[in-house]
């Protein structure tokens, strides 16, 4: 038995000692002695003759060997990338508005315009996108369309028309649309809410947590805070349905972001998500390596707070702790990752296609248009080859089958290649996964 960091991962949560077998996905609880033995083997080059004194080394060795024989420890991965269905389009991200009614400081879309002119997507482009997605969805029944921006509610009449057209066309072809939308809430009204509910449009609502945290980063164009404007709208919206996510961004300014997640809960929201900001190294709000220790502590605190609520019967659905240890996605899906540039594309208001919304407006990443289809097959090939087995750092990382190789856009932005993931993002991801695995184990143990 040769234990290495790419094959097993140990998580020490005090009384709870966890072993993840990376290639099989098996999760085990270890006693203190077994944990100490494995910890030592990982650092001493698997030297069984140089281990801490334990009472039952033979028993530990037998237990490990038994698990290995069952395929639950040191499982072998052939590292052959399984090619699934080719040329099947799953999803389009519709940048329906290159414009925004907020002036968020960390906006990756240059406050909504993606570095270009402020414009809305014409209805005809939206309908062509519906046709394009249905046409290229192959045998897949479900087509996914995400209304994004800028702020998609600035193009609300168009969004409604496209939804109605998409539903009718999908119905005609025996398919179905799943629509999603991410909004800043400024233009959210009861009428909008009713339409979103009636058409089962999954909705992500942006809110950064406590009022002072939110208002600092998400002001209006007159530099007023937007918290008081949107909170009551979100509360009304959340009361009307279960399918919503409150989504926030934490920055260098609120490293105590667990308090913001708990603030959501206190305000009555159940489905919650909080993400690390991605920004240029020079920006004052960007996370930096020296923030990492605090970030780690926050995820630990959040995990304990989550469990405390769970035990008291008040379950908080924190999106990033939702890791299904038993029935997660298959390995091919885990290897494929987000599918950007292969089975998922973003559409600009003009009808230009990009690998994902993060690349919109960058001419060198324009892969085609709705009219021409995909022209840059070389780019599609590049994205399709940017999977875990082709990324040296991912191949050596224990988290590879949970994260799917990370965000292509972040890799490209920070390392100018799709094949080297963004390091700070990976560190946060790994910490968040450790917390998620711990939370799920504790829930199982009751």
């Amino acid at each position: 038995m040769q234990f290495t960091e790419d094959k097993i991962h140990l998580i020490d949560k005090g009384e709870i000692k966890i072993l993840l077998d990376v290639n099989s996905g098996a999760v085990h609880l270890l006693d203190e002695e077994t944990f100490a033995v494995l910890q030592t083997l990982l650092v001493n080059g698997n030297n069984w003759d140089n281990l801490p004194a334990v009472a039952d080394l033979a028993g530990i060795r037998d237990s490990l060997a038994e698990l290995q024989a069952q395929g639950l420890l040191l499982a072998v991965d052939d590292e052959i990338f399984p090619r699934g269905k080719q040329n099947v389009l799953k999803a389009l991200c519709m940048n329906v508005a290159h414009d925004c009614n907020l002036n968020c400081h960390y906006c990756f879309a240059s406050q909504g315009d993606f570095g270009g002119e402020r414009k809305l997507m014409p209805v005809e482009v939206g309908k062509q996108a519906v046709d394009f997605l249905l046409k290229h969805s192959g045998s897949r029944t479900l087509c996914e369309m995400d209304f994004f921006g800028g702020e998609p509610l600035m193009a609300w009449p168009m969004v409604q028309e496209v939804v109605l057209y998409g539903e009718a066309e999908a119905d005609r072809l025996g398919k179905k649309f799943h629509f999603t939308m991410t909004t800043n809430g400024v233009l959210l009204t009861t009428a909008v809410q009713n339409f979103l509910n009636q058409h089962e449009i999954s909705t992500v609502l942006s809110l950064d947590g406590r009022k002072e945290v939110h208002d600092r980063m998400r002001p209006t164009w007159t530099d007023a805070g937007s918290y008081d404007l949107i909170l009551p709208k979100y509360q009304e919206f959340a009361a009307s349905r279960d399918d919503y996510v409150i989504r926030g961004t934490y920055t260098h300014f609120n490293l105590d972001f667990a308090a913001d997640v708990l603030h959501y809960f206190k305000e009555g929201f159940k489905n919650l998500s909080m993400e690390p900001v991605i920004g240029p190294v020079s920006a004052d709000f960007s996370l930096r390596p020296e923030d990492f220790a605090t970030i780690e502590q926050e995820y630990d605190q959040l995990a304990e707070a989550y469990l405390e609520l769970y035990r008291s019967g008040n379950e908080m659905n924190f999106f990033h702790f939702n890791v299904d240890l038993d029935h997660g996605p298959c390995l091919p899906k885990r290897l494929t990752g987000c599918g950007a540039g292969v089975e998922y594309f973003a559409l600009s208001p003009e009808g230009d296609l990009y690998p994902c919304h993060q690349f919109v407006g960058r001419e060198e990443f324009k892969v085609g248009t709705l009219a021409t289809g995909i022209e840059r097959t070389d780019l599609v090939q590049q994205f399709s080859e940017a999977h875990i087995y082709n990324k040296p750092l991912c191949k050596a990382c224990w988290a590879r089958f949970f994260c799917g190789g990370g965000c292509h856009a972040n890799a490209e932005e920070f390392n100018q290649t799709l094949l080297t993931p963004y390091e700070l993002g990976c560190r946060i991801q790994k910490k968040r996964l450790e917390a998620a695995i711990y939370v799920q184990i504790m829930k199982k143990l009751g």
Partner: protein
Amino acid sequence: MKKEHIITIAAPALQQSKKTGACGNCQASCQSACKTSCTVGNQACESKK
């Protein structure tokens, strides 16, 4: 009595899913933090729903 050193909590048999999976019916899973980064580990398998 033999001491129990290890308790298995989950055994999803990922390698087996390389042969049985890839139906492609699962949702796209954007990992960008500007959306809600749906890391693949957060996803449910559509065929097991």
